[in-house]
């Protein structure tokens, strides 16, 4: 990456504001987005040598608009008539406040009609201001493949006639849910995935946090937005402790808590405390509340498992996701003992059939219950079924350790 970090940050911050202004002037989202990407690449090339202009956003809008005009000139007459009609919309003298555009763009890029992978790629480029190459590197696919994915996503938006505006009241909740889900997926991709460099991974999570902050600035009163941001911060806080020197997974109960990021924990805890106090508790808030309980325990034995069980009780009433029931079983086992947890797992045999996490949790609880012989097989099954290398290493090591003990 040849961009210097300061310029890179500046460009990423400016991206949604610039794109918002260009779309409002020319109407065509797909072409405007390409023009803004080109303007940003030009900035990344010329600013380091010539210096950053006094008004970077204005510079970028100007260059992107020139690209749009060039494009219109070089295209056919029919096309030109269409574009001119669009350009006759009253042009904005000043770009609208940046955070509004971030949110409008986010709603477009996370349209429920797009597949998650397309929405993620488009959001990172159009709202996050990342280059196609950077996004391709983060997801370990060729740049040409990522470019096609973004281009197809834009065509899908074009085909669905989504207006460049905030969604109406009727669809608001569903559309916001899509936005939050995409942001959650971007964060998760950066947090749990083992492939790629740690740097690229961490950057994805940082982007997700930055974009969620932008949504929060635009919607300061929405408790689920606050909940998602808190969840990200409280999870991100543990990143330094969650992997060993060679990338091996360190489970929560074995992490060196001195490595956790205090500032993120304080900020996340404040956010979630305030959000929950407002009532209207949603799923992200509950997950953040659970993360906060873990994060405030100085030692693993200080964890308030009863409070965690209570939060999972609430979460279970909101969702039929069997993974929630699985997590709740772990918490119950911490309060009432491993046999109580094992009994809860029996109900999950059907909904989570063959899922490696069910076997991993059962193995863990069997071992704690002193049933090591039964635990081995469960560890082995879990290791055979996981799709993550660090997890497989961890589970294999557990099985080998128990087998060794049996002699």
């Amino acid at each position: 990456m040849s961009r210097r970090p300061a310029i890179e940050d500046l460009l990423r911050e400016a991206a949604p504001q610039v794109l918002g202004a260009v779309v409002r002037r020319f109407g065509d989202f797909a072409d405007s987005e390409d023009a803004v990407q080109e303007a940003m690449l030009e900035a990344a090339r010329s600013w380091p040598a010539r210096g950053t202009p006094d008004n970077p956003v204005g510079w970028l809008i100007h260059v992107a608009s020139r690209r749009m005009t060039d494009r219109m000139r070089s295209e056919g007459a029919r096309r030109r008539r269409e574009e001119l009609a669009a350009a006759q919309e009253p042009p904005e003298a000043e770009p609208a406040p940046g955070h509004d555009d971030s949110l409008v763009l986010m709603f477009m890029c996370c349209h429920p009609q797009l597949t998650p992978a397309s929405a993620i790629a488009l959001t990172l480029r159009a709202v996050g201001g990342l280059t196609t190459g950077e996004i391709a590197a983060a997801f370990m696919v060729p740049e040409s493949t990522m470019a096609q994915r973004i281009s197809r996503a834009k065509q899908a938006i074009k085909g669905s006639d989504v207006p460049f505006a905030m969604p109406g009241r009727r669809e608001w909740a569903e559309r916001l849910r899509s936005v939050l889900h995409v942001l959650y997926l971007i964060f998760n991709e950066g947090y749990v995935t083992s492939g790629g460099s740690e740097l690229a991974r961490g950057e994805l999570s940082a982007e997700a946090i930055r974009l969620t902050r932008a949504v929060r600035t635009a919607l300061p009163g929405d408790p689920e937005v606050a909940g998602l941001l808190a969840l990200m911060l409280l999870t991100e806080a543990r990143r330094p402790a969650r992997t060993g020197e060679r990338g091996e997974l360190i489970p929560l109960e074995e992490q060196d808590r001195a490595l956790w990021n205090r500032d993120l924990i304080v900020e996340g805890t404040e956010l979630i405390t305030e959000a929950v106090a407002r009532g209207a508790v949603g799923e992200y808030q509950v997950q953040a509340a659970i993360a906060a309980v873990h994060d405030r325990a100085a030692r693993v034995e200080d964890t308030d498992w009863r409070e965690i069980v209570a939060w999972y009780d609430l979460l279970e009433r909101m969702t039929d996701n069997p993974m929630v029931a699985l997590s709740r079983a772990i918490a119950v086992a911490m309060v009432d003992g491993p046999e109580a947890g094992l009994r809860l797992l029996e109900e999950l045999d059907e909904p989570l059939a063959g899922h490696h996490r069910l076997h991993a949790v059962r193995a863990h609880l069997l071992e704690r219950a002193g049933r090591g012989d039964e635990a081995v097989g469960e560890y082995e099954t879990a290791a055979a079924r996981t799709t993550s290398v660090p997890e497989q290493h961890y589970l294999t090591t557990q099985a080998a350790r128990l087998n060794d003990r049996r002699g």
Partner: protein
Amino acid sequence: MKFMLIQNYESTETTNEPLTKWAPEDAKAHIDFQIRLNEELSERGELVEAQALTGPELAKIVVHDGEGTPVVTDGPFPEAKELLAGYRIVDVESPERAVEIAAETSAAPGPNGVPLRQRIEVREIMGTPGSDA
């Protein structure tokens, strides 16, 4: 999620002749099919990598005990049919989509344009543990 779609050298249900022994127009149709499939996957934003390997004649098998000289055996080998011929890596939304691509690959045109019904092994690449609550 990423999958590797693997093809071996074994004969298919419809032919055991290598491509070099097919009618030229059939061989061309087969090669065009492979190129078109790659283009199509790339346009859909799904293609990560497509590679063909050199044939069993150029293959070597190496065995070493950590000391002394490694034992190197030159191909072809009696078990050549089990050797990897080529693979595609695709990044798709679902396992079902990977199977769909594998099915398309399996039906590549053979002699007289008859679908080859080649065996395609579908293997998920280790990566994301998947999001959970």
